[in-house]
Each structure stands twice: as C-alpha cells, then as structure tokens.
C-alpha cells in the first residue's frame, strides 16, 4: 500500500523538537541545525550520534523507531537485490531513494552511490519524517 504523503505542515509541526533533540545529541548550537543540512558532512555526526538521536527522539515523542532500519525503510517494497548490487545502489534503487529522501537536494545524490554512504544523505528533515512515520504506526491509545 502506498504511503500517505508527508506534508510540509506535518514536518514543521515536529521540527522544533527534532532540532532541539539533535542539537543536544550533537552538542551543537540550535541555530546550526538547519532542516536540509547533512548530518554527517554538515554537523560531523557519526554512527553513535544516529543511535543517540533515535534514542532521544523515541523518548521525546514517545514513539518507537526501529533501530538500524532507516536504510531498510528507504528501500520500501523494493527487494534488496533490486535496490543495490555489490554495494552500489541501482538505478531503480536511486529512484526509490530520491522519493523516500525527497527532502535531500537532488545534487547530493552522487552516482554511483554506495549503499553504505546513504546515511551521508540524512538531514534533520529525514528524522522529522521518521518521527511522523513512527507516530502513524503507533497503536491508537486504548
């Protein structure tokens, strides 16, 4: 089933808390957190920071974000062998990835793109969308 589109208004609604959480996790100033800045290249985030951010966002929003599944989610319904081959994202994979990471400026999708380098594309807005998806998947309160 196709995912319901995420609107800018939904992103704007969660962004302030996401940005604050990221600034705290990265030890960065809040004003340095911009929606489309690369977390790795622009804010020096490392893999432990991604774990930290997911952990903090879970607590801040009272949601569950499957750890280590961001790239897997980005693949969507595309089988792994059609998404990447020998560690390189395929043409079909790139189409899927551009759609999933629609917040990432097109020029940042270098080709060939190594699957291991997908996290380099992530931005604070990517995490806003993760939060929104997790909120949608959360069971309704009893």
């Amino acid at each position, binding site marked *: 089933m196709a995912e319901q589109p995420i609107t800018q208004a939904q992103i704007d609604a969660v962004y302030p808390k996401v940005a604050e959480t990221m600034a705290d996790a990265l*030890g960065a100033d809040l004003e340095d957190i911009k929606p489309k800045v690369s977390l790795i290249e622009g804010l020096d985030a*490392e893999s*432990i920071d991604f*774990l*930290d951010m997911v952990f903090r966002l879970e607590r801040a929003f009272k949601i569950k974000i499957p750890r280590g599944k961001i790239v897997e989610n980005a693949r969507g319904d595309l089988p792994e062998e059609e998404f990447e081959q020998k560690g390189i994202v395929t043409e079909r994979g790139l189409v899927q990835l551009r759609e999933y990471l629609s917040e990432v400026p097109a020029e940042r999708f270098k080709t060939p793109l190594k699957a291991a380098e997908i996290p380099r594309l992530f931005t604070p807005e990517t995490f806003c969308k993760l939060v929104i998806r997790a909120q949608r998947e959360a069971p309704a309160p009893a």
Partner: protein
Amino acid sequence: MPSADHFAAYSFVDRIDRFEPGRVATARFAVPREVARFPACLVAEAVGQLAAWVSMDRIDFRGRPVAALASQTRILGDARPGDVLELAVTVDQCDDEAVAYGGSAHAHGAPLVELVDCLGPMLPVAEFDAPEELRARLAVLRGPGAVPGRFRGVPSPAVTMLERVAGVSLRARLDVPASAAFFNDHFPRRPVFPATLLLDTQIAHTLLLARDAAWAAGRTVTAAKVTHVKMRSFIHPGQALDLALDVAVPVDGVAKATMQARCDARVVAGARLEMEVTDA
C-alpha cells in the same frame, strides 16, 4: 588457556539473585576489603555489567553491549571496601542492534548510583570474548555465584598536566597503559580501555580543578551527576588521549563541567559533570 584475570580483573557481578530474561535482574557484588577505593564509576560499571548479562542472554550471546551513551548517572553515595553492592537493572529494549536500560546500586540499603536512560550498541560477541565462556559464566552467576574477592583494584592511568587555569580549565594528556590486568578481562579477545576508568579519571581531575576556584573557598564540592556520556570510539591500550576539562561558575549551588577526550584531534569521548557546591 583462559587468563586468571578473565571474569576477575574488571568484573563486578558476583551472584545474580533474580533474573527475568530480557527484562529485570538483581545481583550482588562484594567490594574486596583489600582495594584502596571503589569509586562511583566502578559502581556504575557493575550496574552496566549486570545489564550486559541480561542483554547478552536476551539475544542468545550473538552480541554484547559496549558502553556508548548514558543520559544520566546520579552519584548518591560512596561505596567502601567491604561493602556488598546490591545491583538492579531494568532493560527497556533489547535486540541485536542495541540495549536500552536503567539501573541502580545500593549498599546497606542506601543508594550509591542511579543510571537513567543508558544505551549500548550490541556488537558481535565473538570479537570480544568466547561466547561459550560467557554462557557458562552466566550459569555460574545465576547458580552458586562466583568466588568473591577476585577484583584487586585498578591502577590510575598516568596523567600529565599541559595547561591549567585554577578553577576554570585543564588540558592534560592521559596515557592509557599498554598492558594491565583489566585488559585481559575487558576484553579477552579485544582489549579496550574501560569508559568508566576514563570517566573516573576525568571526574577526579575536574573535582580537583573546581576545588581550586575562588568560589570554592570554604565550600565543599562533590560530584553529583554525570550526564551526556557519549563514547565515540574504542580506546586502545597504549593510546594517548588529550583531556579537556572546563568548569563553569556555580549557579544555584551546582557547578557544571564539560569533560572531553580526544585522540589525534578526534573526539573519542565526552560527558558533562554536575558538582554540588555546599557551604562547609
């Protein structure tokens, strides 16, 4: 042949009293009377090790957690040689990726440390230790318990002052020993300098630094809380770390400090310390 230091030189769980798989555990550790000190960081390490046993068992010893993130560790009291630590952990989440947990340690019914929102990534256990030995050890801990008194203390690492502004900042070099008994336990297949030893050293020097401040005259400065602990990479035997400790003027009886360790200019560990400042 396993080293005599394994499960001894840096292991702080003697016997597990209660074990709800994947969820909750309580345990004991007797601090040997012979050790000179058993600082709060080692008490926190004991709580973390109990969480490690629960989490390794949870994923059938495919992975083991390593110290990475600790949102808050409250230091509530001192453990003394001869004390029996009562350890408790609650695992909030655990899978092959990471374990999230909290816990506490008491002695004689009084609280010593409380760990809130800790997270450790799970790494392949076989890189660090023999899975079958860990499995057998957990059976001992859950059964008759380990022989107490195995821990013999840990040497303080060498710290060389580089620059010091009394009460404000310190730059120093910490030389991680190239060899030490605790490396045979932490970990047998891949020696790693324990994050808790780094923190203990940083806290000790930050307290000394803060006590030299003009505002500290006639007042008592004690470590109350460690927050924002983040270990970014493993610290190996023989590495040299650049320590940066910075203390701020107290506000409402609390002096905050940042503690950072770099290796080759890269930040490898960071934490914040809150110190309670009271009139003596």
